[in-house]
């Protein structure tokens, strides 16, 4: 689903990476692997916290970096709940009340669907390239695998809470393995792990994304991919706010 891409995008982000060309080439390559011009996906979202655990099935569409739509397929109680990201804004549509809410600044830092991601995480993904400088910090064998490690440091003025982000990528296939977010004291804040390699949209990709917050060892959020199609024909109007009600049907 789209959020998977968003998260992947966080590390792999494309195009305009400043710095040496090899770094930006690999990052772009990895990013291209994940983000087509548009996408359609079906995924399962598992959330485990101290207070509850839940599992949801999601369907999502995306176009470019700035537009995405996610719809809950199950459980029935939340079926039809949609999250629309369009440019700078996030909208939530609740079928029960038939209302579309634009998330205010106050809601940006709250959890998305009860997971360990915030709405802000979803929004900032596409701006990572503006906010970070990337460089290769390690190349060689680690845990029996040939890897390349990238370190992403936030730019001075960037509105980023992290101290740095460290990303490990398979050296040969350029598939992501692990992404670790550090706070300013360089303590681990959360870890993304990518597993479950499987053929999706014609290529081998990790199908499971595991998010573990460092301060809550028993909690996690997990995205498991079932289906993925890239470069599907889809129009911009699909991601209109006014189209939310239409998608409901």
């Amino acid at each position: 689903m789209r959020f998977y891409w968003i998260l992947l995008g966080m590390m792999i982000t494309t195009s305009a990476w400043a710095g040496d060309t090899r770094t930006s080439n690999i990052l772009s390559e990895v990013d291209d692997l994940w983000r087509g011009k548009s996408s359609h996906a079906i995924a399962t979202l598992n959330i485990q916290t101290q207070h509850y655990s839940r599992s949801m099935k999601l369907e999502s569409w995306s176009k470019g970096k700035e537009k995405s739509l996610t719809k809950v397929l199950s459980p029935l109680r939340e079926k039809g709940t949609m999250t629309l990201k369009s440019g700078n804004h996030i909208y939530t549509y609740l079928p029960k009340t038939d209302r579309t809410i634009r998330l205010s600044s106050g809601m940006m830092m709250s959890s998305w669907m009860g997971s360990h991601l915030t709405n802000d995480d979803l929004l900032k993904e596409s701006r990572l390239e503006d906010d970070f400088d990337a460089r290769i910090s390690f190349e060689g064998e680690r845990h029996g695998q040939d890897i390349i490690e990238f370190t992403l440091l936030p730019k001075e003025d960037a509105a980023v809470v992290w101290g740095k982000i460290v990303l490990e990528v398979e050296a040969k296939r350029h598939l992501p393995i692990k992404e670790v977010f550090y706070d300013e004291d360089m303590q681990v804040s959360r870890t993304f792990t990518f597993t479950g390699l499987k053929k999706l949209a014609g290529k081998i990709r990790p199908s499971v994304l595991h998010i573990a917050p460092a301060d809550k060892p028993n909690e996690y959020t997990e995205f498991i991919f079932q289906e993925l199609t890239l470069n599907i024909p889809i129009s911009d109007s699909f991601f209109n706010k006014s189209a939310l009600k239409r998608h409901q049907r």
Partner: protein
Amino acid sequence: MKLNQLAFRNIFRRKRRTLITASSVAFGVLLSVTFTGTGDYTYTHMIDAGAKMGMGHVTVEPVGYQNSPTLNKKLQHIDKMLDEIRNLDNVSDAVPRIMGQAMFASANKSIGGVFIAVNPNIENAKNNLFIQSLSEGKLFSANSKHGIVVGYKLAHKLRLKLGKKLVYTTTDASGEIISRIARVKGMFKTGVDTIDASMVLLPLAATQQALGYSSNQASLIAVLIHDQRKADDMRDKIASLHSTQNYEELSWHEAQPDLAGVIAMDKSMNYISQFLVGLIIAAGILNTMLMSVLERKHEFGMMMAVGLSPQALFKLVMVESFWLALLGLTLGIVITAPWFYFLYYHGIDLSSGFGDDFTYGGVLIDPLFKARLFPESIVFILGSVFSLAMLAGAYPAWKAGRTPPIESLKTI
């Protein structure tokens, strides 16, 4: 008639009783000064603290800002307004501020709160409670881009230290969501938990830029005045200025109704207890005066028999009351002065009884039991104690005037 001389002699004939009566009057002065004085001190302290917490004694703000303080409501041409307001008499300061809600996030956590954007060149410990209560670090400079001063509880929750960064997210003037980074320059500890856990100061210039304000725009102007009791007058004066015509002016009563309510309630409680104390003192005076009249029944009877009119007797006892009251007031001033001096300059430390939370009605109060008196309060105290004493003397005087001469002479 030599009523005065007679009254004097009567008073000093029974020195002990006179002393007791005068002491109860004096005691009344003492209690009244203590009650009124701490009231005057505490309310002024609370109101000034409230004013320094953001809105001032008088606030100039866009129409409707009070009920829905959003960032798309703003004042234009604040320089002109500031000039005009500062030129008014009794204004101690006028400062532009931007107040808004924001989310503050570090890598560990995010918390909702309120920011006040201030100009560090004109804000200081005198007009800003947060600067006054800086506990670590210092205020940012005027051209600081990323400076921020946070409440120590907020810092603790976000696990921030001096120099660490946090990201704040808010909605700008046109409704867009914006995020900016800031580095902790200082921390304050006001003692009000909710404020220490949710408030931050930002540099005005950088905030104006981030929110899409021009340097001549702000959300409000906080006006501080020398005497908080003149807030309503000042509000009307400011409202009549040329430059403030399109905006709303509120005194602290209106801008901080919760504080005004707390003070009004506390004041009426204070009045009730003062009234009760007054009643007890009046009863004491009444008692001694009545005793002295009944005791002299024989004497009054004699005076009437030799031709003194009932009116003259009434007057005599009233004059006695008058001198007694005056004596009592003098004694009261003598015993109250050192007590008041102590309360005014030193006060009694009540902090052990408060715990850590020195707040009442969401406003900081001084944990010291101190007193100050407004001139009119002094007049009020002396006037009311004096009239109380006179009133208590009226019944015995009336009684004296009604002494039946023959019967009185029969009893010895």
